[in-house]
């Protein structure tokens, strides 16, 4: 018996575009082949991988570089910061052999370390939110599409409701309430608590697009012959979803997830920029922008590094998402 997935959309379409593809290659291998030929995709993947490595290896970088993101070097060593303005004494934001990316105005911390650890914070939160949202999106989307009827209606309205929530306003209102509920007034709000709250909110308000997309896909898939055939042979709904539907949803899920992650990272940064995300002294990418916006008249260099890093990251991730889609669904290639 052939697995229905092999007769699915992906495989059927592949030979048409690939033409003389060598026989015996699985769709996965074909996709990898196409992806490897896409130079933009490979470079983007490299860049993205680099960001994840930096985030992962932050403590190692800190040890090798000999600095940490918390020490206020500029305040501890008065010759580094101009006492009158609080900006670095040396030109270009205090870049030198010791501080490769310069030092932060006023507090005098190391910019490179702030950025590396800031990327770590933002990526961790973004990744967690992406995983949770993707799983939720799949479950709700498939359920809504496959069950149809009343379930579909109610889930559809729930999605509408959540889509209409202003995310940032919700977070601004949400954070003090949960803090008051769970944190003793005598104790500092723990960092893990903030991270959890951020992830929860990003998750709660981030899964709907994917769910909607999948619902549409499932609606059309469930009328297809191979699903009908599975039903006739008496397969359980669970088996149909797992073995017939999900394998055909791989493309939209992967593409959506790669686009979702940079989106979450920028949203997290935006929340911190607005002052409701992570607070000092936890290093944070978004807060570096907020500071940069304050300092840009006197020290534009400070904005430079987080700015460039964010632009590179978002562009690379979006290009990667495009390339993945191209590779998986060759109908859309140029």
């Amino acid at each position: 018996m052939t697995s229905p997935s092999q007769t699915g959309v992906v495989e059927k379409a592949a030979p048409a575009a690939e033409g003389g593809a060598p026989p015996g290659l699985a769709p996965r291998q074909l996709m990898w082949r196409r992806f490897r030929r896409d130079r933009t995709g490979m470079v983007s993947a490299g860049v993205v991988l680099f960001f994840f490595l930096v985030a992962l290896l932050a403590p190692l970088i800190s040890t090798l570089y000999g600095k940490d993101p918390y020490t206020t070097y500029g305040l501890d060593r008065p010759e580094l910061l101009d006492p009158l303005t609080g900006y670095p004494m040396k030109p270009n934001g205090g870049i030198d052999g010791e501080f490769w990316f310069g030092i932060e105005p006023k507090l005098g911390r190391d910019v490179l370390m702030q950025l590396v650890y800031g990327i770590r914070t933002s990526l961790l939160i973004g990744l967690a939110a992406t995983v949770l949202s993707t799983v939720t999106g799949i479950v709700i989307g498939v359920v809504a599409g496959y069950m149809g009827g009343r379930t579909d209606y109610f889930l559809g309205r729930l999605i509408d409701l959540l889509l209409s929530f202003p995310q940032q306003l919700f977070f601004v209102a949400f954070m003090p309430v949960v803090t008051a509920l769970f944190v003793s007034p005598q104790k500092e709000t723990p960092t893990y608590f903030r991270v959890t709250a951020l992830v929860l909110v990003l998750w709660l308000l981030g899964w709907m697009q994917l769910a909607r997309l999948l619902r549409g896909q499932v609606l059309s898939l469930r009328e297809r012959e191979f699903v009908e055939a599975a039903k006739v042979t008496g397969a359980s709904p669970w088996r149909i979803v797992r073995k017939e539907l999900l394998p055909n949803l791989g493309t939209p899920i992967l593409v959506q997830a790669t686009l979702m992650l940079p989106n979450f990272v920028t949203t997290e940064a935006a929340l911190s920029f607005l002052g409701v995300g992570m607070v000092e002294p936890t290093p944070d990418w978004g807060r570096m922008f907020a500071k940069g916006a304050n300092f840009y008249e006197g020290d534009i260099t400070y904005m430079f590094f987080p700015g460039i890093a964010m632009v590179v990251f978002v562009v690379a991730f979006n290009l990667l998402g495009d390339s993945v889609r191209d590779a998986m669904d060759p109908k859309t290639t140029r």
Partner: protein
Amino acid sequence: MTTMTLNHRRRARTFTVALAAGALALAGCSSGGGSDPKESKEPEMTSQGITLGTPADSTGPAKELPGAQKGGTVTVLQRDAFEHLDPGQIYVSDELIMQTLYNRTLTNYRIDDKTGKVKLVGDLATDTGKSSDGGRTWTYTLKDGLKFEDGSPITSKDVRHAVERLYAPFQTNGPTYLQQWLSGDGQKYRKALPDGPYKGKHLPKTVLDTPDDKTVIFHFDQPRAEVPFAVAMPNIGAVPPEKDTKEKYDKAPVASGPYKIKDFKPGKGVQFVRNPHWDPRTDSIRHQYVDTYDVSFGHQWVDSTRRLQAAKGDDRNGMTFTNAVDPSQISTVLKDKEAMARSMTETQPYVDVVSINTDRVKDKKVREAIAWAFPSGQYLQQFGGPKAGEIGGGLVGPTLKGYNTSFDPFQKRKYPGGNAKKARELLKAAGEDGYELVYGYGNGDTHQDAAVVVERALERAGFTVQKKEIDQSTYYTQIGKVDNKYDLYRSSWGADWPSASTVVPPLYDGKNVYNDSANYSHLDVPWINKEIARVAKVSDLNRATAEWMKLSEKIFTKEVPAVPTFYNRLFTLWGPGLGGVKWNAVYGAVDPTAVFVK
């Protein structure tokens, strides 16, 4: 008096990556610091020698300024909207300076155009007051030719009405010195005249007497040396009883000064135009050079700094009463020689302290350790460095009479990052190593940065710090609760006149431990309460100010109720088209009364 809000309000910003990238493209690099030492010259810290003026000093007109001419419109850029125009309700710094344009009080401060020296002189009154009965009775005589904006004469009945209406329940925001001295402490004074003068009742002649149209006599139950200063507060002026619209007076008060209110749009702005019935011969303090003052609100510091520095169009004749150069723009302005020529950096009467909640931190040794460990210098750096303030040694600031420059028992100036070693020793000796402190701070950028500095320094000294952020808009309400759960929190207080008598009692008297009181340390120590009551009875002004100063120093070293962090400074700009801009040291703001358009 209190400053309007936390120093730095949150600014609304939009977040776009494109904006960041665009800014990067504009300028790839920035030059370093290392400012010219000439530019970093700070105001001299000689304590304010405010003297009492003679009747001759009180007689108008004010001396003409060389080159001054009449006409023109001055644009005034302010951050916070004025909430009150009723002189009885005014108590915040920007409104205090604004009311000098249209409101006259019994006495007032005359600021020398050249030296900036301040003299207390008679304003509505012919002099600063005559005391008799050992300082229990004060008599004021009104000048001739005083008129309201409608041309009707100002008499002693109008002064009496202005005082008596302060007893009415709707008068809640202004200073209460004179009312309390006349009729009782706290809120007790209101019982003397529960409805104010509105139902035909008046204060008895044994308290406030107006024997004729020109004479006002105050009777107190104990010697009150500082009455001349108390009647310079904006609420001790003249209000015509028949024009008093009670609550509505807050929007349209009747002017007695050289300007009157033309157009007040709450939250937007206010326009002041000439008052034709003001007679310069009755006024030794104010001029009437400018046609119109056009005040508009909602200008963040960044905005006002940029506009006044560029000085384009109307901003050529622009100024601000209390907006400072934004800390992020200090370096830009310092490099601009032309703009620096029309700037000033002056010390304000405000003292920033970090109060220690003595209800929670009961051990004095621990409080001393906090005082040693606190990084005042690094903390000030976050608020803008020497252009925003001077490291504080004691609890009262340099604008007060008798201020002692060398008083710095915890060596805050020597150790800008705090003396962690000494603090650690004290903490060990007290057996409190690892003592847990809850540090409450307003949730804004600057305060967050300052919290980083504070946490580092206190932890170095052996404390465990729990930082709790407090919503900016309710900050003072939160820390004002007597049963708050914080150990350390910032607050700011300014002397109402240059004597520590307006600092020590409101901040450290045990009577003032109640919600929303300025006694944020909740200090209630018998010997302090007794000393305050004793010094309040000293009838000689000079001796009293000296005693208050001594008491403030003793409270600090003996009880350590707070750590002084910095004495505020204002670094501000005005447009090149203006002359006669001077500094009002009493209100800590730029004085508009002698401004003219060149």
